[in-house]
């Protein structure tokens, strides 16, 4: 009895990148980098607005480079790379926001007296 092994076509194979993708990705990345730089150095925004703009531009550039340089969008089903990527994003979000949350909470709960005791102990070292 002969078994017909199903032909497995590689799904993880990076879709052959194109010159156009690299040029577009490079041009967009330069614009976004210089834009973020100018948003900070030109003082035309208020501080809170400047933070939003800069973080927004960074996230946009993150997406641009994922798509045009790391070719995340060219993957065919099943999208294992995308799955691992999403899992990474989840872990990173828990790690970063969890750390900030816990540490700011500890900071908030530290009484002035505790801070003084701590600093005196440290000064003795």
């Amino acid at each position: 009895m002969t078994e017909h092994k199903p032909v497995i076509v590689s799904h993880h194979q990076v879709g052959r990148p194109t010159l156009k993708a690299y040029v577009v990705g490079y041009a967009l990345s330069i614009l976004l980098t210089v834009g973020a730089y100018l948003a900070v150095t030109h003082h035309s925004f208020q501080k809170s607005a400047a933070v939003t703009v800069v973080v927004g531009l960074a996230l946009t550039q993150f997406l641009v480079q994922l798509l045009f340089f790391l070719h995340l969008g060219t993957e065919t089903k099943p999208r294992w790379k995308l799955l691992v990527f999403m899992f990474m994003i989840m872990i990173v979000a828990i790690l970063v926001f969890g750390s900030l949350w816990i540490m700011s909470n500890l900071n908030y709960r530290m009484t002035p007296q505790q801070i003084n005791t701590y600093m005196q102990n440290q000064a003795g070292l």
Partner: protein
Amino acid sequence: MSKLEAEDTDGKAIFGFWVYLMTDCVLFASLFAAYAVLHNNTFGGPSGSQLFSLPFVLTETLILLTSSFTCGLGVLSAYNGHKDKVVAWFSVTFLLGASFLAMELTEFSHLVHDGNSWTRSGFLSSFFTLVGTHGLHITVGLLWMVVLMLQVLRRGLGTSTVKRLTLFSLFWHFLDLVWIFIFTIVYLLGALKI
């Protein structure tokens, strides 16, 4: 091994490398978290906005971005089988990467020389750890590039060399990706005194 099976192994290798890159993201995320927690703990020392020169860092950023682009062009040449172009583009990538590293080390040596080393404050400890880990990755990337170029020159562009070049390009693009966040969070938001 048939061509199709070979391609599948390549796909697995690329996928495996991708998983490694994602775990490396988690490593950087923990360093970013440490920096975010500690960046105001200057212990009476200088803060980021007093230490960093934005035009200098912008130059660094554009150099690394350009090296990421030339690396991509190198991989395209590899797919098209142009050995000379591959060597040329990766040499450009290497020079840009080396200048980036040189600028980063210049910044570090200025900081240490002015008494603002990693022992100065919690802020500077986390700064040197985060940016230094990225610099270490760049150093490894530069060494990897040298090895790959020797392989290309000696063995030509076989399937295994092209696969390795692809893996390297993923690594190099990934380092540029991490740098976007270092540039934004450490330098730009540092200048805004967040």
